[in-house]
């Protein structure tokens, strides 16, 4: 079943479009956040008056924390308080993987080939996870190349240990695969492409709103707010600051993925098709 589900993903254009849009958006985001803004702020590019340079929101690429923030495959600005196009592309890819079978009737042939619907779901999750890993790898290449190219252009030495870079990129692959699978589960639950996309975007946007309001009210991020999907993803990637321990974040993200899949499995088993 895994092979047929992989074929389903690779023989349709929607996942490729999501991948292309995500990669293109990430390149633009990284060029702006990692290359252009720091270069403008440092005076190495453009003719921004010195008194205005401090007002430019840019990463401090001289520090290891600044370089780490620039390394995120979800986009340097996607780490906190915003929803990057890379994240949108990832969840859309998952949602489309979950809904296209319903839209065109392929779910029937899947159930006829494998009457055990949980196995069908696991095959879909496996295939979607592989698609997420490939996407994560592409995004990781983009973010790493942008960071290293910018550091070379600005003449700034790399301040992050290669082992740390490898760990961040590995965790990024895990986080992106999990997000994609959560998108798949939402797509299966929703069945309709429009409903699935709206639900997923709504959840992510709601998280940003909740986080902003929470920060304003309590002046920080309580633990429950750090357990929301976007915050968890960024904590697992580890390019920003978080009070949640990394092992707990990884466990929580995996748990969220399993819960989403369990809900989808329950729906699949109960539905007549």
């Amino acid at each position, binding site marked *: 079943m895994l092979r*047929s589900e992989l074929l389903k993903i690779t*023989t*349709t254009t929607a996942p490729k479009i999501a991948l292309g849009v995500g990669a293109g958006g990430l390149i633009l985001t990284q060029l702006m956040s990692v290359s252009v803004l720091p270069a403008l702020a440092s005076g190495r590019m453009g003719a921004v008056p010195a008194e205005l340079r401090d007002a430019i929101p840019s990463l401090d690429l001289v520090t290891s924390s600044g370089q780490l923030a620039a390394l995120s495959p979800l986009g340097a600005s996607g780490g906190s308080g915003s929803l990057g196009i890379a994240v949108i592309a990832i969840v859309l890819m998952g949602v489309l993987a979950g809904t296209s079978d319903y839209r065109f*009737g*392929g779910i029937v*042939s899947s159930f006829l*080939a494998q*009457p055990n619907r949980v196995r069908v779901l696991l095959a879909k999750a496996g295939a979607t996870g592989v698609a997420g890993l490939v996407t994560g790898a592409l995004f990781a290449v983009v973010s790493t190349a942008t960071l290293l190219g910018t550091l070379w252009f600005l003449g700034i030495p790399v301040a992050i240990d290669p082992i740390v870079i490898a760990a961040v990129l590995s965790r990024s692959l895990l986080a992106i695969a999990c997000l994609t699978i959560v998108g798949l589960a939402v797509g299966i639950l929703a069945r309709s492409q429009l409903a699935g996309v709206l639900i997923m975007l709504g959840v992510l946007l709601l998280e940003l709103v909740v986080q902003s309001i929470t920060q304003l009210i309590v002046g920080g991020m309580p633990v429950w707010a750090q357990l929301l999907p976007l915050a968890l993803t960024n904590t697992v990637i580890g390019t920003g600051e978080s009070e949640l321990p990394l092992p707990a974040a990884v466990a929580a993200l995996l748990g969220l993925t399993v819960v989403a899949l369990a809900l989808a499995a329950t729906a699949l088993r109960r539905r*007549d098709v």
Partner: protein
Amino acid sequence: MTKTDTVPIRARHLSKSYPSGAAVTDVSFTVASGRVLGLLGPNGAGKTTTIRMLLGLVAPDSGDALITDRPYSALGRPLQTIGTMLDAGGLHPGRTGRQHLLIAAAQAKVPAGRVDDVLTEVDMTQAADRSIAGYSLGMRQRVALAAALVASPNILVLDEPANGLDPAGMHWLRQRIRAFADAGGAVLLSSHVLSDVQQIADDIVVMQAGRVVADTPLADVLHEQGGDLERFYLELTNAPSGVR
């Protein structure tokens, strides 16, 4: 393909209700090896629900839906036992016919090389690498039939397979189904086209309002009705004249 002692398809007292009312009530029939059974009935008679219960896609409220004497879910490699053609095959318009069949082959766990064989069988080799979006309805039906045949099953369940086929295509389909049954296969054929059923079916089951109102060898009907299947059908289903 050889005849076996097991009953290829058996519906036994199947019932299914939805919140809107009963869809199928106490439906029983069998399809034997080497026979083509035509499942007839007007829209909403319960044909599709019955077929979906047989295939494990819809859970019956009561009764047994058996394929080779087992529930569909208990079949080891179901696609190698039974090939199906439902909903025009669930074809994704963004794929090519060949890609659709490669997926079907992977689902059935048969070698990808089998795809070329079934493309030849349904005469779609020339158009195999074109997008399904550009296929006519008849071409889609051929690809859907190829997917049903990809694992060389002994049983076929075909829901309105003649939809969109031109006369030559319908002639080809009738021959294909007949040859399949003559080789020992069992075919459950749901169709609105009485003339097609009359030409290839061995037995007919007529459904009306969720119930079986006739289950009989076609030859008996034709003998009693002077060769007029349509009159028999219209009398049973209380359909107005003009229904095919």
